[in-house]
């Protein structure tokens, strides 16, 4: 039934031609490069990359890194939109590179397609598309993103109705990719703003019927850097790769603040 498959041997030399899939067309990938070890400021660099319509933008970045320029630097891991590593600006909007397909970026007619890729905005750039995530993670940690309860734990599970569980379902989907926070004009201009992702994670607990820490979190979010900075531009909702209604979640936190005793 199966027979040994001999995988074609290649010369393997660096000068050897990189692989090109049947049906691939060349697209221009224009990347904002910056390596503080050698560059004084960011610069655009373009690469011609063979691409299939079904390719993810991440595939094109890999092509550049693996065959054209090994110094190109970005984060990635799962490659299917679950781990949140590869948030970047693709054609000017925040996306995960592994969730955008080339076919959705193709130019009409004969015009050659150009795809621009830049780091997410508002966090310090460490190298090329790789940014310093620490300020983002600090904002997340500041809102007490964990279940707070008092008193004795039950022996078995806590009882929670399906409806109560559903109440905060949307905000449990967050993968901390920072697409929302780094799409927010308030975050760009006023770095101390917690940003949408932190508020989403506060929402996830404030509206969890098992949690008893809502007041503590609302006090934090009522702060000068808290939810009142939000100007409801909806960039965050557009940017979320998990489809979370981010702006709605922020509005619900605002409402909880207005109507709490």
């Amino acid at each position, binding site marked *: *039934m*199966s*027979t*040994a*498959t*001999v*995988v074609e041997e290649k010369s*393997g*030399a*660096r000068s050897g031609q*990189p692989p090109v899939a049947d049906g691939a067309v060349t697209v221009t990938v224009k990347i904002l490069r910056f*390596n503080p*070890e*050698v560059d004084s400021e960011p610069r655009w660099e373009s690469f011609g990359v063979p691409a299939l319509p*079904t390719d993810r933008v991440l595939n094109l970045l890999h092509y550049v*890194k*693996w065959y054209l*320029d*090994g*110094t190109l*630097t970005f984060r*990635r*891991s*799962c*490659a*299917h*939109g*679950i*781990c*949140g*590593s590869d948030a970047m600006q693709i054609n000017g909007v925040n996306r995960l590179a592994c969730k955008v*397909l080339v076919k959705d970026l193709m130019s009409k007619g004969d015009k050659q397609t150009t795809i621009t890729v830049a780091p997410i905005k508002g966090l310090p750039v*460490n*190298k090329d598309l790789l940014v310093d*995530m620490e300020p983002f*993670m600090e904002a997340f940690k500041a809102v*007490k*993103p*964990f*279940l707070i309860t008092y008193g004795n*734990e*039950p022996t*078995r*599970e*806590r*009882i*929670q*109705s*399906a409806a109560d*569980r559903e109440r905060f*379902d949307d905000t*449990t*989907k*967050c*993968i*901390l990719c920072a697409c929302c926070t780094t799409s927010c004009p308030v975050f760009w201009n006023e770095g101390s703003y917690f940003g949408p992702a932190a508020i989403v994670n506060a929402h996830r*607990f404030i509206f*969890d019927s*098992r949690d008893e820490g809502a007041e503590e979190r609302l006090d934090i979010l009522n702060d000068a850097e808290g939810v009142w900075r939000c100007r409801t531009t909806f960039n965050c909702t557009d940017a979320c790769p998990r*489809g979370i209604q981010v702006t709605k979640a922020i509005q619900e936190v605002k409402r909880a603040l207005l109507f709490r005793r």
Partner: protein
Amino acid sequence: MQFHKYDVVIVGAGGAGMRAALAAATEAGHAPRTAVLTKLYPTRSHTGAAQGGMCAALANVEEDNWEWHTFDTIKGGDYLVDQDAAEVMAKEAIDAVLDLEKMGLPFNRTPEGKIDQRRFGGHTRNHGEAAVRRACYAADRTGHMILQTLYQNCVKHGIEFFNEYYVLDICLTETENGPVCTGAVAYELATGELHVFQAKAIVFATGGFGKVFKTTSNAHTLTGDGMGIVYRKGLPLEDMEFYQFHPTGLAGLGILLTEGARGEGAILRNASGERFMERYAPTIKDLAPRDIVARSMALEVLEGRGAGPNKDYVLLDCTHLGAEVLETKLPDITEFARTYLAVDPVTEPVPVYPTAHYAMGGIPTNIHGEVLRDNDNVVPGLYAAGECACVSVHGANRLGTNSLLDINVFGRRAGLAAAEYAANHEQLELPAEPTRLVEEQVALVLSEHGKERVADIRTELQATMDANASVYRTEETLKQALHDVQALKDRYAHISVQDKGKRFNTDLLEAVELGFLLELAEVLVVGALERKESRGGHAREDYPNRDDTNFMRHSMFYKQGDGLKGDIRLDYKPVTFTRYKPMERKY
């Protein structure tokens, strides 16, 4: 070089690593100084990609008990499971789930508000009578919720993380009673600086090595680093020939579609629409264990009943489940099919084919997570848990959901044991020149000594492993794979990377990862060649039957000699039996 000193150091921040950290820091009764090192950020770990559920005999929706779960795990593993370990896991599963709920995990709920449970492959009522609802779940993102919940609790308890620290070696100090683990050496990605972490106990929770294959559900970062490090130290790896192929990967891409879809009632069909699993597993059909379903799918395709223009996949039919079930219980996989294949599961069946998914083998441990240096002795101070470890609770084939269970039960056990050990032992001196190996390794990769591209070697490795060492194997295909892997190892000696810098040098990182992949691929293939039988996930066409007389035993692989070219010494370890006699495996 920077120096750090801790009581417990955990390497890896997926489910097993963070569960170990929480156990060490909050449950051990004292508070050992604990640090977690990860080459990623904690929430990027691949635990987050797990979808379907975590089994525990809570009996929330129907009669169930942990003894049935133990039996299913042993039978599912084709009797290569160490039965004492399976019993521990099934018993402690119940508290493992309840602990997660108390930490805040948002499980789906029954109408009474209890944790809901769904069916999953190979999990049955009363030793195989019918499928049982045992898997606790949070939609189809159970792994995501476990990873987030554990990280949230690490934040709550102030666990110290070193993010993007890539551990490349462990420190073994020789004593008259054998080697003792005294530390780990990490390469800091941000700066290229080396860090020595001296510790009384080290826990490895570094995940799998799915990137030896081309079609895989695994993340790019799953390159077997932890297994590779341990193996290079002359310590054994166990049962590496047993690799699981998950039946339902998106065809051509390998992206996982949960078995929970079939748990909710989805059906596998061939080109003519036939529910072919009725022929292979008449009792539980589409909910047979993964090895059986994957082989059945491959056979359908090999015998010309595959679907699509090239007849090279089968179809996962969810259309009868309805939009409501798909949107609420299976939203992520519904979106994956829409995004990556432009197929809407609500109205069309989804093209699927087996995808490389999970290593049953790994670093051998006992039920306390202590790493073995041979069949009888442990390496004091060294622990392992999760996919990188082999307890062995999965034997020759892991049941669905048992990996999320494994990381919680044995992650916790390893963390507790490490904390206990740290509390009762003095810190030994580090060996001389603890960073020397890593310095040499990094310098070698960065030096100019050839023109081979890392991507070329990796691509060819993955191609030959897919073609010659996947669902079905023969002596001929495995010899071809071995020839290819060894040739690639020769070429690896001539790689060159373009990025010579110190700052976030991911070019260097990928080259180092490839070294681990090549080494582990060779071990896998050698194990598969030597195991002249078919058992669980290891299917030999030339030896189609299980052979308990000659092969009811674990494989133990030892590296001999230095460098990547070292030889493999194969030894064996008996399987632990308690109450279950091997029987023919029928479903």
